[in-house]
């Protein structure tokens, strides 16, 4: 016998109503806060179309996760308060409830609906332009006019990124500047081990695999500075494998790349022909 002054059923309905009201209240307060206060500041910012798309995805996920997390927390907090043992000397048991098919059924329906919706949403967004992620050598999520994108090859090696520009004489540079409001096609590859090209503010991440061309699309927006970091452990200097980059107006980009071609002309004479993948020696044990 619970001895809490009400019949069991009325007690239960009373508690259930309390939990539901508390949950609705908490969700009504927290969800707008999370969406409108945190939302605009979610990573990775609005530096490119893909980055802005990720911010939108994160906002949707956060808006969905907030009521779910609050539901669990409110329920637990309420239960710990309402159903705490108040009469330990009685050594009594609680209610012998073993289940409730209706609750279980609707829980399954609700969780499945949420899971399928979130998944469908994410997949749809992914298939638009690839969301800035590496899609392998034959991407299926192509942005419009993908064939006229500016191709930039990202060569990852132990332990720096270099960039090669096939439409500018195949020149290779250490620095990267990109023209604003342009569709860029990153062709990411590696010369040795697995690295990962992560341009944070552009919302781009593509693993650099040796012998594989990993393509990621991004449409830049206005001028900004971005940071490139290696996101896959590649050896002792992995943490130091980073460089900065800039998105600049188109004219500034044109003059920059012309200057780079002059500057790196000696190296360009020594480079192997431009290719989507490279297999430099030594591949096996060095002699």
């Amino acid at each position, binding site marked *: 016998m619970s001895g809490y002054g009400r019949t069991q059923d009325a007690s239960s309905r009373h508690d259930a109503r309390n939990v539901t009201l508390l949950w609705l209240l908490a969700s009504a307060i927290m969800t707008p806060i999370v969406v409108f206060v945190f939302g605009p500041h979610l990573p990775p910012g609005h530096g490119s179309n*893909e980055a802005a798309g990720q911010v939108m995805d*994160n906002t949707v996920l956060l808006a969905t996760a907030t009521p779910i997390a609050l539901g*669990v927390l409110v329920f637990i907090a309420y239960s710990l308060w309402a159903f705490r043992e108040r009469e330990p000397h009685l050594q009594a048991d*609680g209610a012998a409830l073993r289940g409730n098919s209706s609750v279980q059924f609707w829980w399954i329906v609700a969780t499945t609906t949420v899971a399928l919706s979130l998944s469908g949403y994410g997949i749809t967004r992914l298939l638009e332009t690839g969301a800035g992620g590496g899609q392998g050598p034959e991407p299926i999520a192509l942005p419009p006019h993908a064939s006229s994108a500016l191709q930039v090859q990202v060569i990852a090696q132990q332990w720096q990124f270099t960039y090669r520009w096939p439409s500018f004489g195949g020149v290779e540079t250490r620095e990267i500047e990109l023209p604003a409001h342009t569709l860029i096609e990153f062709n990411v590859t590696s010369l040795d081990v697995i690295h990962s090209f992560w341009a944070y503010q552009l919302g781009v*991440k593509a693993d650099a695999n040796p012998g594989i061309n990993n393509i990621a699309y991004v449409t830049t927006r206005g001028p900004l500075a971005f940071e490139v970091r290696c996101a896959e452990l590649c050896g002792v200097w992995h943490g130091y494998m980073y460089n900065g980059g800039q998105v600049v107006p188109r004219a500034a980009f044109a003059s920059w790349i012309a200057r780079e071609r002059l500057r790196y002309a000696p190296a360009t004479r020594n480079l192997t022909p431009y290719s989507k993948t490279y297999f430099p020696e030594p591949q096996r044990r060095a002699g």
Partner: protein
Amino acid sequence: MSAAAATSPGPMSARAPLWRRLIGFNLLTGIALGVGGWFLGHWIGSEIHGESLAYFAETAGENDIAIMLGYLLGVIGFLIGLGFAVYPVQRLLGRQPTLAERESHEHGLLRYFSLSTDHKVVAKQYMVGVGFFFFIGGLNAMAIRTELLQPNTHVFGANQYLTLVGMHGSMMMGIFTSGVLGPFANWLVPIMIGSRRMAFPRIESLTFWLLMAAGVVLITTIFFGGFQTGWTGYQPLGDQGTAGYDAYIGFFALVGISMTLLGFNLIVTIVTMRAPGMIWSRLPIFVWSVLATAGLMVLAAPTLIATLLMAAMDRTVQTAFFIPGQGGSPYLFQNLFWVFGHPEVYVLALPGFGIVLELLPVFTRKPLWGYRLAVAGMLGVGILSFFVWQHHLFVSGLNADLRPFFSLSTELISIPTGFIYLCALGTLWRGRIRFTVPMLFCLAWAFNFLWGGVSGIFLSDVPSDVTTHGSFFVMAHFHYTIMGGLIFAFFAAIYYWVPKMYGYKLSERLGKWHFWIMFLAFNSTFAPLFALGFLGMPRRVVTYATNLQGLNDWVSASAYVLGLSLLLFLANAVWSLVFKREPAARNPWQSKSIEWQLPTPVPLHDFEQLPVFDGDPYPYGEERAPLPAVAPAGEGA
């Protein structure tokens, strides 16, 4: 066998001098033969290689074949020294095999340093052994956080830092996969199903000693230059490494074998050795979780062993499985590793689910709510865990057109996980909740795993994952699920079952201090990691953007407090179990589960008479006597 005859069982051996009792098959002999095996293997490896390998070995200054053979023969010697060859050799020679029970003829403390066929002894060996390597892994974590206090000053060498990272991850992911199954499944599963032993007691002991050998092999990596790949061991980076990577291969190969054998043993035991009346719908939920976990271990670990064999061959006999310029595939290792790696993390999560659902009825005084749904949740998580692994490879470029499938499957796995939560919530509802230390840890599990699970939803969404993959966000996610989930459940299990396993009480007061400090410090340590990942900090880095130093310092300070809370637990354990030794009551938690109906200490054969079960272990609030239907003799005697 002469050695078996020298240490004959019976009261005489208890009075024989210590040095005489040390001769025979035990840990000391194991270490001696292990060291001998190392030198033998190393010598053979140095002799057998051909000319080109000799040249490479000389210029590199290391011989990988010698090292791998050294590890192999060392471990074999170790196991022979412990006595694992006795039974096979006896059978091969056509002799009458000794009964399993007769093999555990040691008494007292020496039982724990030899091959024991008493499942309770093996469980305690596991508890201390796994605890020891957990401690080492934790120390490495403290070192990592010390290094990350400043981006532009280095406390440790850059190579050593990566080995720290790899050792921490490997200790935890390798050793601690047996962290719950080792101590608790081995101790509880036979008793909970009404059996006196596991199906294969010698194999049970083997899994323990293999794990200890594995831990030692991993520690030897520091003598060979460490390994630079982290616990995931990616190729081709691993191929480049010094011989420290061979230690990593040896470690995980041994862990894989141990896991496979442990899984088989548990499955066979649960399927074939249940006592009368223990039908599937009465099986304790903890045993269901162990069954699901064992299934995962048996199917996933062999993939790891095969993958590591390929890596070993790349490094020793000049194959090129993972070297692209020679026809190998740079994707192959990642892909195969995660086929193991993803079920592996559910090997860590499922026992946590099982412990919490097993304990909640005791401390809410209600039956487990939604038993069938909970079982469906365990099995659903287990089965689905094999279909999600490529979510670790979303931006790798591998199978990009399959990403929608893996995104969906990863999202779907939240559904059976949700079942577990519903059953936990339902068990709390209208209970009579007692806030004992085990209950506090169970509640913390519910809180921590919630954040781990929610962050998983972000990671399963590919656009969101583009930014968070390989960043500290992922670190926060898996620390919340594995440490916040499993480790907290593990401590719940310790505070709950230690009184029965050891017969002594753990201090409740120290326990509550341990809990609160650990819970607050844990959240303080890992919550900011979500922010660090969102702000662009990659994993496994020794330096980071200077504007992130404030957050990193907060995390490091909290990590030190977290470490202190674990030292507090250690102090509690040593004080209560070694010194104070206050006898525990037979059933301090008034649990209606069968293990609490046995006397403390539990006798060698567990049950005088095998029980007959007439219901599930949760008859709270119902008019049914606690199990077993047949009272064991010795009760109250």
